[in-house]
């Protein structure tokens, strides 16, 4: 299948990468990475997804350069609710602010939420899952029951209840979403742990006197990473949608922050006549979550070729 991909590298390097007998650890790793990449790159939609996410990152980093106007202060006298075109490419909102500039700066908030949730929820789930799987017995039962309880709640409702208690704000939205998104990661990490727990190399490490902490941290967790990364990427879209939903209900980022969900909420009043105020941020959300979904699908197929046909 790798023949289908045009490669700019000389063939000899490709042979070096694809070697059955790697000479060094680095060669083995590079070879493996190359294999995953070529599988990934053969999926056109996945590459589109990757492109969208890279574009999002670039837009967020260079927001200050790219945005033609200020995202928070507008021309109230001359530029209220202007239609798209002309000086304001995507029109202006009710406060005379340039919608395009707000979208560009809003990408930072979206990334902020997504990255923070991933940083909090993924390690938490990984920890709970690996401990649960490795320890077994009553520890496993208790931890899995707790996981089930959190899984039993619909995500958005639980996040709503948490934000209601914590108070609105983007940090609290992040905390609420993180609390609701770790259980699937724990499930995945546990399943992976169970498959390697009784393998010979773990027994060997144990015989060498490694402590359970060391075994879990150094020898089990790394093996759970690839399936966890896939799942986190696939969840990103859900996280963005939940954050936007909270923003739409006025519980996420507060004005004048250009959060996309909150922008839709403020454009809701004008939907009948000035539809572009609400339409543009929703479209941005759609594109970015589509990007994460495509990327996640592609990663899953590339890292786990067994399940790729479904």
């Amino acid at each position, binding site marked *: 299948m790798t023949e289908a991909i045009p490669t700019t590298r000389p063939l000899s390097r490709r042979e070096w990468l694809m070697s059955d007998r790697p000479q060094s650890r680095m060669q083995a790793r590079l070879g493996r990475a190359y294999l995953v990449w070529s599988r990934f790159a053969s999926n056109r939609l996945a590459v589109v997804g990757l492109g969208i996410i890279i574009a999002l990152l670039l837009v967020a980093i260079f927001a200050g350069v790219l945005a033609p106007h200020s995202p928070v202060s507008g021309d109230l006298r001359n530029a209220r609710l202007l239609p798209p075109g002309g000086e304001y490419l995507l029109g202006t909102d009710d406060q005379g602010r340039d919608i395009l500039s707000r979208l560009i700066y809003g990408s930072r908030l979206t990334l902020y939420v997504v990255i923070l949730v991933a940083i909090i929820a993924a390690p938490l789930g990984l920890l709970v899952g690996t401990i649960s799987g490795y320890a077994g017995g009553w520890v496993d039962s208790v931890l899995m029951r707790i996981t089930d309880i959190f899984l039993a*709640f*619909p*995500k958005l409702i639980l996040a709503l209840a948490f934000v209601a208690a914590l108070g609105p704000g983007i940090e609290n939205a992040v905390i609420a979403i993180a609390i609701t998104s770790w259980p699937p990661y724990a499930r995945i990490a546990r399943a992976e742990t169970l498959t390697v727990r009784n393998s010979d190399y773990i027994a060997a490490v144990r015989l060498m006197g490694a402590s359970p902490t060391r075994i879990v941290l150094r020898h089990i967790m790394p093996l759970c990473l690839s399936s966890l990364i896939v799942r986190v990427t696939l969840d990103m879209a859900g996280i963005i949608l939940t954050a936007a939903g909270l923003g739409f209900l006025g*519980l996420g980022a507060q004005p004048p922050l250009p959060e996309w969900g909150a922008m839709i909420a403020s454009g809701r009043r004008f*939907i009948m006549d000035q539809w572009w105020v609400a339409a543009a941020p929703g479209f941005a959300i759609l594109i970015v979550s589509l990007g994460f979904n495509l990327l996640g699908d592609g990663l899953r197929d590339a890292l786990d070729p067994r399940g790729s046909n479904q």
Partner: protein
Amino acid sequence: MSSTESRLESRRSGAWASSLLLATGRFILIGAITFLGLLAVTFFIGRVIPIDPALAIVGDRAPAHVVERVREELGLNLPLYEQFVIYVKDALQGNFGNSVLTTNPVMTDIRRVFPATMELATLGTLIGALIGVPLGVLAAVKRGSIIDQIVRIIGLIGYSVPIFWLGLLALLVFYAKLGWTSGPGRIDVVYEYTFTPITGFYLLDAVLQGNWEAFRNIFSFIILPASLLGYFSLAYISRMTRSFMLNELEQEYIVAARAKGLSETRIIWGHALRNAAVPLVTVIALSYAGLLEGSVLTETVFSWPGLGLYITNSLQNADMNAVLGGTIIIGTVFVAINLLSDILYRALDPRTRAR
């Protein structure tokens, strides 16, 4: 069938029934534990996170003895575990306190608004299943074709689009521009006097009363939000149907059916889909539960007077009793549907009988 065989058969079916009973018992136990967990979480949210619920009621300028009295009335001076025991007892009796906003008991409010949410979710699931299953089957049969790609893209967009935004656009196009449907709300004011709700499911009520004019009116309101929710369950159902069908079409009995000379239609819809139907029941049940959740944002956009709108309205007014009561109800329904679909799966799948 010889007598030993029939005896074996009857013993086997008896064993199956008892294993089903045992499984049901286990499921109920798990359900009970999960329900307790739900209550623990909402208890934590309602009692532990806020700095002081008593202060939240009387305000921070209130004199100390007033605060103390309120604390005692709320039972906040008791140890936390005793508070929790009382909380669970109350919840089991359906007592979630009073709503600050409507001054009614929260349970009364929920009983009033819940049928609206269920009606919407039911119609949404129906739409999603009736379109999603055939789409998924088609995609699996014509795997890799243009139809497969289109179904995949429809599904992907369904997973990626913010539901409240799509709702706003739908209102803009189908209500404001085209005028095909009614706008936000559930029924025209005109019918408030001629139409009396009985069950709370307006469509059903209209049929029961033979009030076709009201039925048409209600339908013009519900069709837009229901189609929207239907689209979301369609995205999920068609994807799962495709994957189940691909799995079935690889099986040997399909080859056998082909060798017997059965028509392709018969093989796909009669044989493969019938076997895929068992896990599909679970998927449809789960998507129904998911729509109950999706209703929060949809109801807000369409001013649909259901549980979702009730929760968001209460949120805006910091009415925690109502928010948490609604959360518990939706969580409980979620757990119940999950358990039911598990039990249903066991009852429907003949392979569980063999053991």
